[in-house]
């Protein structure tokens, strides 16, 4: 027995061994972060049922943020958690560096805001107005599930961002997918079948990742990032191509990149979309950075086609043009979307295309643009998703009348839209500026920079049109004769406070982008791309956001302020002219009055009126049909009628094996 075991390299040890080497006295901030995450899950399990304890959960996210901020990994050395696992002889460790810190910060922040929104939306007043989670049965039970799923999603994401090797990355991402599925299922605004579809596509992507992982393990003999990096030059051409193919399939499916975007969920009701838009939909970019940028490197990625003898097959170019196509598709669909929820979903997809384009370009500005976009989009889309979906949970452009919005609320929405568009002085402008600068400067693109710039501009234009549709719609006051009986809900302070915070941060980080650029420079240093030369107000020698902001204010304020006062006085006059009844119906101090712009018909492009859902169904229908045909062919080939042929083929193969001397 002893000899037999000694001869066996594997599995002479158990498949998984847990190793914990810490004591209470030696807890690192990273350990505290994980403990706080698990503690929040525990709190959600025990207390999530009762609304009065929701602030405790929010405080739990606050504690996680505190622990994260105390882990000095942004500028210091990477930190390794005390908890370690040994799976299949591979050590699975969790370590945090600046990249992990960045994504963890986004995730915890998003969960914090989502939890605050959930607290407000679970109030009895919101329930009476049918806002938020509206189950058919036990309402508290649904909120309970939501809080547990949210806390689990955060913990799983924290585990993913701390991946110390490929196996931990795969495990972490799988857990994130299933935690997100729970989150989506706990939100009845999203149909259960859509959530399950998300799970199906994500699992498919997971198999692609697992295939890539297995092939990398086959080539490197290890799942460690550094060893894999070292083994890359020795991989065969076909082996390398298979790895890239599996990776593109896996990451593409999970990022909803073209042409693998069939699983998009239709978010309709907050608060889950707040978390989803803030980070959930783009969590895959962590894997893009770790795998494609840090571990494999774009140079190797680009050279795989050449090593196969197909110099025309530049995989990096394919990635760049896929991103460009994603931009066009996303914003085009957003422009023709039939509801605000769908519009936001497609717009988010288009913005994902911008981020993918930036990362694919690489370089100092490109990578900075991608990272900064993640931050800016997290702030802006969360605010828009929370705000618009709160006001318009079931509205469609065709059937519903508009909603009145308070001035403050409108300002929040407009700032978020400006950031999405990339208008100064928001943070989104800095991100877009960096992208354009990279497109103009990079020698990689040669002539193709111009069509790409054109596509980026076209995307910007369609984004503007889509957002204008949304802005017009939300500014229209409710029409009591339209048959739409949903009254515009009143925004509570609980919802307004976090959304105002997000908008303020969007503006502040736009005017003073230095701190955010500092994080990005630290990440660039980590992943070995040229580091951005930044300063407190922008890019050294290229962009000064403070000056841009001041210039903008100097130009726009003299125009906007008088115009706003004129509209306000007009709004006060109109109800008085219409009689006292009109004054009772609308609150002129809180609601923007109908303007000439509001009376313009909201006309989506005729060709895309049924739009997004039908398109997704068509794409998915094609996929399912293909799958049906394939599986039917396989099944029938082995069925009763063909069994004898299959038997003969098998015997012939045996003979072939024999003759070939295997």
């Amino acid at each position, binding site marked *: 027995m002893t000899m037999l075991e000694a001869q066996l390299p594997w599995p002479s040890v158990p498949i998984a061994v847990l190793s914990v080497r810490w004591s209470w006295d030696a807890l690192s901030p990273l350990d505290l972060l994980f403990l706080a995450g698990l503690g929040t899950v525990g709190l959600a399990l025990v207390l999530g049922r009762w609304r009065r304890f929701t602030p405790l959960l929010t405080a739990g996210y606050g504690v996680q943020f505190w622990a994260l901020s105390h882990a000095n990994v942004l500028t210091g050395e990477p930190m390794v958690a005390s908890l370690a696992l040994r799976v299949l002889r591979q050590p699975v460790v969790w370590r945090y560096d600046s990249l992990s810190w960045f994504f963890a910060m986004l995730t915890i922040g998003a969960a914090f805001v989502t939890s605050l929104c959930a607290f407000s939306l679970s109030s009895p007043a919101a329930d009476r107005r049918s806002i938020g989670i509206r189950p058919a049965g036990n309402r508290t039970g649904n909120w309970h599930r939501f809080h547990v799923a949210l806390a689990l999603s955060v913990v799983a994401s924290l585990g993913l961002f701390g991946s110390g090797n490929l196996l931990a990355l795969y495990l972490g991402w799988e857990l994130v997918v299933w935690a997100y599925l729970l989150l989506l299922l706990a939100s009845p605004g999203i149909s259960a079948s859509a959530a399950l579809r998300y799970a199906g596509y994500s699992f498919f992507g997971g198999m692609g990742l697992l295939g890539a992982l297995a092939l990398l393990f086959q080539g490197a003999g290890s799942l460690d990032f550094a060893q894999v990096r070292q083994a890359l030059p020795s991989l065969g051409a076909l082996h390398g191509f298979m790895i890239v193919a599996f990776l593109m399939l896996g990451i593409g499916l999970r990022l909803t990149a073209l042409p693998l975007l069939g699983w998009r969920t239709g978010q309709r009701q907050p608060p889950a979309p707040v978390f989803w838009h803030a980070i959930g939909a783009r969590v895959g970019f962590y894997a893009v950075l770790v795998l494609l940028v840090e571990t494999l490197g774009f140079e190797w990625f680009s050279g795989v086609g050449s090593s196969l003898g197909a110099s025309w097959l530049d995989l990096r170019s394919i990635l760049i043009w896929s991103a460009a196509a994603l931009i066009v598709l996303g914003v085009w669909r957003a422009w023709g979307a039939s509801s605000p929820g769908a519009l936001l979903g497609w717009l988010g997809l288009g913005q994902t295309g911008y981020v993918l384009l930036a990362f694919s370009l690489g370089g100092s500005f490109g990578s900075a643009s991608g990272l900064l976009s993640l931050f800016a989009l997290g702030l802006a889309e969360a605010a828009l998703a929370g705000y618009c979906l709160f006001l318009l949970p079931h509205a469609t452009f065709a059937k519903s009348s508009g909603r009145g919005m308070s001035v403050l609320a409108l300002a929040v929405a407009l700032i978020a839209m400006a950031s999405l568009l990339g208008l100064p002085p928001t943070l989104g402008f800095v991100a877009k500026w960096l992208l354009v600068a990279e497109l103009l400067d990079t020698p990689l693109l040669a002539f193709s920079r111009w069509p790409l710039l054109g596509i980026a501009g076209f995307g910007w234009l369609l984004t503007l049109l889509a957002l204008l549709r949304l802005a017009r719609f939300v500014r229209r006051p409710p029409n009591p004769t339209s048959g739409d009986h949903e009254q515009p809900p009143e925004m509570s302070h609980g919802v307004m406070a976090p959304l105002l915070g997000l908008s303020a941060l969007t503006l502040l980080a736009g005017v003073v982008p230095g701190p955010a650029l500092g994080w990005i420079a630290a990440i660039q240093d980590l992943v070995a791309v040229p580091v951005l030369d930044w300063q407190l107000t922008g890019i050294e020698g290229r962009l000064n956001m403070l000056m841009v902001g001041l210039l903008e204010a100097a130009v726009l304020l003299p125009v906007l302020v008088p115009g706003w006062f004129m509209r306000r006085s007009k709004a006060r006059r109109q109800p008085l002219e219409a009689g006292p009844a009109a004054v009772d119906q609308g609150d002129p101090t809180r609601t923007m009055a109908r303007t000439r712009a509001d009376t313009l018909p909201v006309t989506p492009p005729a060709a895309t009126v049924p739009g997004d859902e039908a398109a997704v169904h068509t794409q998915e229908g094609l996929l399912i049909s293909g799958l049906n045909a394939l*599986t039917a062919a396989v099944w029938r080939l082995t069925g009763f009628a063909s069994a004898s042929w299959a038997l003969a083929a098998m015997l012939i193969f045996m003979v072939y094996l*024999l003759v070939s001397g295997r």
Partner: protein
Amino acid sequence: MIASAAGQLDFALRALAAIALPGAAALTMRLLHGIWPGAAAWLGPLALLSAMGSLLSLGLGFSPGGIGFALGAAGSPLELVFRVDGLAVVLGLSALAVTLLFWTRWEDHPDPPGQAMSQLLLASGMLGLAFAADLVTAWLCLELCFFSTCALLMTKGNLRSLAAALSLLRWGGVGSALAALGIGLLLVSSAGSSLPSPEARLNQPSDGPLQTIGFALALIGFGTKAGLFALNPWSTDAERAAPMRLLAIVSGVLPVLVSTTVARTLAGGDLGAAANDALLLIGALAAVVGAAGLWQAQDIPAFFLRLGLAANGMVAIAFSVGGAPGQFAAVALIAHLLVVQTAVFGLAQRWSGAISDLSGLATRMPVTAGVLVLFAASWIGIPPLPGFWAKLMLVIVLAEDGGGLFSVALLAVLTATTLEALAWLRFLRLLYARSRALPEIDASSDRQPGDPQLGDPQPPATPVRADRWFHLLRPHWLDRAYSVVAAALLVTAVPLLGPLTAQLNSIALEVARPAAARNEEVRDFASRVSEVGG
């Protein structure tokens, strides 16, 4: 460790008693039923329990090699060779437990003693298969299982069951012929060997062409008979006609026993690369075909039957890798399969119709649906459930062993797992459908009946067919209890992964033992028994 020859003889007799008890009970069943029907109804379960007790008395703390023994005159070409070790006892216990779990319960049969007889013979055959140490013994035991299955298929007495039995007979005949030819070739090819006994000659390490062809034929024959591999067209008829209790056995424990026996007797790396390639190819085919059939399945029996086919394909792939890592992955997959598959079939014993009949089941049976979700999650491999670790081990093992057919097998495993996941998700989506109507299974649409956003009409207020179905679909309390226990086992296994894998590791080491070492022990034991007899 059993040191003395007398102790070994006692050990062998107890093992033989375990095999013989169900068979003897089957032979006396009809007679007892004529005399005392009440006692005959309890005879089967009692015999199975006694056999289980006999096996348990052997204990699980075996020496590495276990105990081997042969029945028949020394040197006879058809003597039966058995080996009792840790894995054999575990598999034998599983076979008996599954038979007991799916024993007929208060149901109307045209021929109750015939049904019980067939079930007992099937149990006896499976037990022999678990203990079989060479292909001839395995073949004979498989024949017993095969004819018992035929008899069980015919117990319904209708035209469909008759057609299914005929189909099984036809394909089983082809399988028997191929297996006999293959075994014959193996015997002929090793005729010049200096090894003293035929069973040892069957197991000798060789790379000869005749042996390879013989092995391939035997493999296809065994696979066809057991419905193990892609050549199982008879299962299409069986899934329409057979009761779920029979399907649970023929798609779960029986193929597992066959693949384990094949792997233990021949594919332990002794026949060279071609034998392993053949096993790998057939396993990959079975995995992909089973998963494709799963996606195509419209009926519940077909769904679960093909699920077992895909899982058994993966087991075969793992065995084909050879060496301890492959056996370890295979044993882990088998352990997971036996727990989950039996529990799933237990729940589905009364679900013989279309999958769409289960629409909205979760609203009426939340515990049953929740347990099914857990089983599905483990089956498709969601971390950190045990099924995930088993599949991950298989993938890593395939990656570790390099390219060629292993890459093809890797692709097959990933494809099959994806298809399984998609099929399961569609199944669960139906289970949790909010409407009680019976929607069509159409994954191309996420439209829910009554979804105002999509302009669907509201669900009808009048009761629909699914309402009437629910009381018929409720599983028996024993099956529900077993499924809850199995679910608890799955969950408990997660924190206990370390000790569990250590236990599996020791079993895998046993499977991976070189055949030459096992043969040596058989000869040694035979000579010692002769001394005792003398």
